[in-house]
């Protein structure tokens, strides 16, 4: 089962969110979210090792936070917010950090990957490696997670109106890095 399928299934089942997680509920929540969070962290932080550490710390902090969550989505956004803050704290020093060479290597073909998608994946990966962590996070949340502006705002601690502007800039930068223009000022 792919990550998207797990997500879709979890949403369809409308998992009730308990104010405090017991161990079984945590295990189920972890199974539903860990792989997606790891992918987010590895691609926004640019390091698989960092993603391993950040993932653990994110869940530990989530378990410690004591917030009463309204829903599964609320808890998930909160988890991504914790992870984002940890990743940004870790990367405060350099404004951009290119992904390591092995990370930029062309991605392995999946069973349903047509050649064009595979090439675009490689281009996207390379472009992300040259962007700022916050830009990566925004684009990932928008495209890979399919989050709305409001959801991105909750994760990154930015108002939805601000997300719109920042996302616009991030997308324009992505277009430039992908060699698709985007120098215009269309909004």
């Amino acid at each position, binding site marked *: 089962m792919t990550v998207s399928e797990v997500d879709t299934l979890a949403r369809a089942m409308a998992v009730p969110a308990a104010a405090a997680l017991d161990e079984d509920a945590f295990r189920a929540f972890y199974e539903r979210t860990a792989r997606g969070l790891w992918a987010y962290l590895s691609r926004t932080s640019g390091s698989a090792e960092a993603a391993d550490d950040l993932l653990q710390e994110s869940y530990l902090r989530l*378990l410690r936070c004591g917030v009463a969550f309204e829903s599964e989505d609320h808890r998930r956004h909160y988890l991504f917010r914790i992870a984002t803050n940890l990743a940004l704290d870790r990367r405060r020093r350099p404004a951009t950090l290119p992904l390591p060479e092995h990370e930029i290597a062309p991605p392995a073909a999946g069973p349903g990957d047509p050649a064009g998608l595979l090439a675009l994946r490689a281009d996207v990966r390379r472009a992300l490696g040259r962007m700022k962590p916050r830009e990566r996070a925004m684009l990932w949340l928008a495209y890979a997670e399919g989050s709305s502006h409001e959801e991105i705002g909750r994760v990154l601690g930015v108002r939805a109106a601000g997300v*719109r502007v920042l996302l616009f800039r991030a997308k324009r930068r*992505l277009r430039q890095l992908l060699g698709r223009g985007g120098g215009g000022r269309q909004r």
Partner: protein
Amino acid sequence: MIGARCPREAEVIRRGRVGRRPDEGSELADHLASCPACAETAALAAAFRAEREGACPEGHLPSAGLLWWKAELRRRHERARAATHPIVVACLAALVALLIAAAGLAARMAPEARGLLGRLAGAAPRSIPFPGLDLGLLGHPAILLAATAALVLAPVAVVLALSRD
């Protein structure tokens, strides 16, 4: 794909989020065919999602049980720290107060102690070098030294107690 280049961009991404392509001949499929911005958005969203799916197997995910156990350990550690901190601080403060009180009482009440202090201070100057300043017993160099040491060490002890992990 940029911002509001096309108002249907969000719809295109949302459709991709659940892994559904628009049905052939549907209105959205027609729109994708005629709108370069949305077509590009759909392609990029597909690339990001494929990247997400492809990235997942690389992760060395710890088990949920291990994380739960670590969180429990942290909780216990924090509870223990929270419970013992005030006790440690109170003990230190009490100890310092006790020492100061004991020194003061000994100097004031026991003639023997006075004699001993006098003998100890025999080699030292009889009073502090501030003309016109009379501090009584505190004017004695040995007592003054002890009080100064207590005043300096007490905050240090408190800082150490608070910073100890």
